């Protein structure tokens, strides 16, 4: 298992290298530069030129690239042009927010998604199944920004139950966190609930058809063991893959959701960095986020090993 981990880590290196090349290249190709964001509405060309010079943006691309990769080798991701903070620090500051929100959304997704999927599979072709799958279909069909807007209109403006946006850290006030995070988390979760419920259902249906489930029944095991132990434990393996994908979708989704609900997370950070042409922030931030996603996938792989002895005892 340790070997597997090492192998996967080594495999991640070229991926991350390519990611950094792509993000560096993309950013430099984007027209416009950070001076516009710094200088604001009433910038004069002279101000802009001063800023460009100050930021070293007047230097050749290769010099800038060497500088960035040089820093990277020393573990320095550079400093955000707009925020004036180190990229690493800014990212780390935002990360807990996105992670807390994603964890919340993931928790909702797991509970509702797996629950609905298992229930639908066990009650295949009944109204329970059809209702669950209808909701799941709705979930994967409603754009999350639309859902977010509807939530704001209904629950914040209309009913006044929840704040329209903003974010309160859990450590500051758990209740405040709950209030500010619920709408974004639910709007983030719905798509993934749909995905997960569908996958869980089809996986469960497939697993329930497996010979070992028949064996478990033939042994006279009670139903809760047949379904909950023999079937579900095996279904968890493909479900875990989807959970890995869902984590990545949550990060993607957070781009829109955080903007919509004014939540200071990674998605908002990176979007505003792209729009403000904050080169180091985008390059470093994207690298960190993708590294994190790669780690998540690594975690998923390791989880397989935990779930599946065939992988654990491979060779």
């Amino acid at each position, binding site marked *: 298992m340790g*070997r597997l981990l*090492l*192998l*996967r880590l*080594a*495999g991640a*290196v*070229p991926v991350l290298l390519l990611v950094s090349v792509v993000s560096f290249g993309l950013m430099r190709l984007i027209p416009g530069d950070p001076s516009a964001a710094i200088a604001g509405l009433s910038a004069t060309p002279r101000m802009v030129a001063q800023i460009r010079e100050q930021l070293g943006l007047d230097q050749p691309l290769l010099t800038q690239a060497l500088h960035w990769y040089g820093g990277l080798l020393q573990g320095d991701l550079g400093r955000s042009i707009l925020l004036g903070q180190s990229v690493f620090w800014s990212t780390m500051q935002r990360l807990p927010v996105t992670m807390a929100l994603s964890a919340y959304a993931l928790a909702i997704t797991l509970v509702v998604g797996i629950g609905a999927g298992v229930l639908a599979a066990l009650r295949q072709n009944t109204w329970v199944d059809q209702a669950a799958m209808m909701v799941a279909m709705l979930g994967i069909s409603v754009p999350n920004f639309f859902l977010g807007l509807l939530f704001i209109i209904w629950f914040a403006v209309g009913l006044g139950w929840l704040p329209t946006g903003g974010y309160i850290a859990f450590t500051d006030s758990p209740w405040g966190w709950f209030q500010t995070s619920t709408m974004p988390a639910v709007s983030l979760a719905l798509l993934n609930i749909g995905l997960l419920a569908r996958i869980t259902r089809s996986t469960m249906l497939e697993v329930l058809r497996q010979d070992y489930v028949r064996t478990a029944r033939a042994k006279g095991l009670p139903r809760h063991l047949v379904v909950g132990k023999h079937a579900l434990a095996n279904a968890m393996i493909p479900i875990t893959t989807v959970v890995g994908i869902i984590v990545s979708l949550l990060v993607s989704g957070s781009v829109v959701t955080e903007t919509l609900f004014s939540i200071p997370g990674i998605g908002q950070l990176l979007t505003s960095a792209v729009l403000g042409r904050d080169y180091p922030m985008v390059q470093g931030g994207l690298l960190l986020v993708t590294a994190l996603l790669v780690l998540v996938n690594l975690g998923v792989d390791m989880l397989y090993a935990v779930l599946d002895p065939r992988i654990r005892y491979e*060779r």
Partner: protein
Amino acid sequence: MNSLLDAQGLVKHYQIGGGGLFGLGERPLLKAVDGVSLSIDAGETLGLVGESGCGKSTLGRLLIRLLPPTAGRVIFEGQDLTSLHGASLKQARRAMGVVFQDPFGALDPRMTVEAIVREPLLIHGERADRGRTAAMLEQVGLPASAAARYPHEFSGGQRQRIGIARALILQPRFLVCDEPVSALDVSVQAGIVNLLQDLQARLGVAMLFIAHDLGVVRHISDRVAVMYLGRVVEQADKRTLYARPMHPYTQALIAAVPALTPVGRAERRAKRIRVGGDIPSAMAIPSGCRFHTRCPVAMPVCRETDPPLVEHAPGQSVACYLYGG
């Protein structure tokens, strides 16, 4: 006289696992075929038996170069197949055909039977008219109406006939049959075996007949080779082999086949030669004789060195120290 096909020291090893960018650690080696030499004469049928995982299918594919060997050569009609490429390889392939086990996976589900049977002709730019395919279908015992239909409309036995028609349409001189009847019901299996025998008699094609069913192999073969873990351990004329098996593995294999009568079964059980345990993994082949871990008569030397395949009786080669070094 030169044999039609001559395999010399064929080896096929597989690296298992990705190994990652830096190839951390050594990757285990699966030794599917581990040094096999054999020859087949024109018009002859060589039966190849062995338990699952012994490498018999891989060997079959090596002989017609569906797989490139790790080492060794295959001389077919005087040409080294392993050195051929491009057009010359394509030309050599005209003379070879293959029939597979799975009657469901062996036919492209999207093609009509006619298109399937015709394909080899098209590949070699030959006349591919309806008459030619119809004649071939008739030869394998399918009605002319079959041509326009799709594989899923046929039963397993009929599908296997389609596969045979495809393999024979170019009139090859060598045919590899890779477990052609294993997936079929016994009642259907006999028909296919008979068909193959008839066609061979009519077309004079040499055959490598791979199977795990010793009865079928005995029925169809002229000679039989027994494989164990990537090696041929015994090879002989079929009567000799079944009547007087020399290798302990061959003996055990034959003894394990149930007789088709309950009479005397208690006695049969009592004196049956048994081999312990299961076939080891091809990734961890035992040192010395690869059968020694299960051999009821293993000697110390068997653990040390691998016995070569030696002709101990006329036309009977055995790789076993029981009959001397």
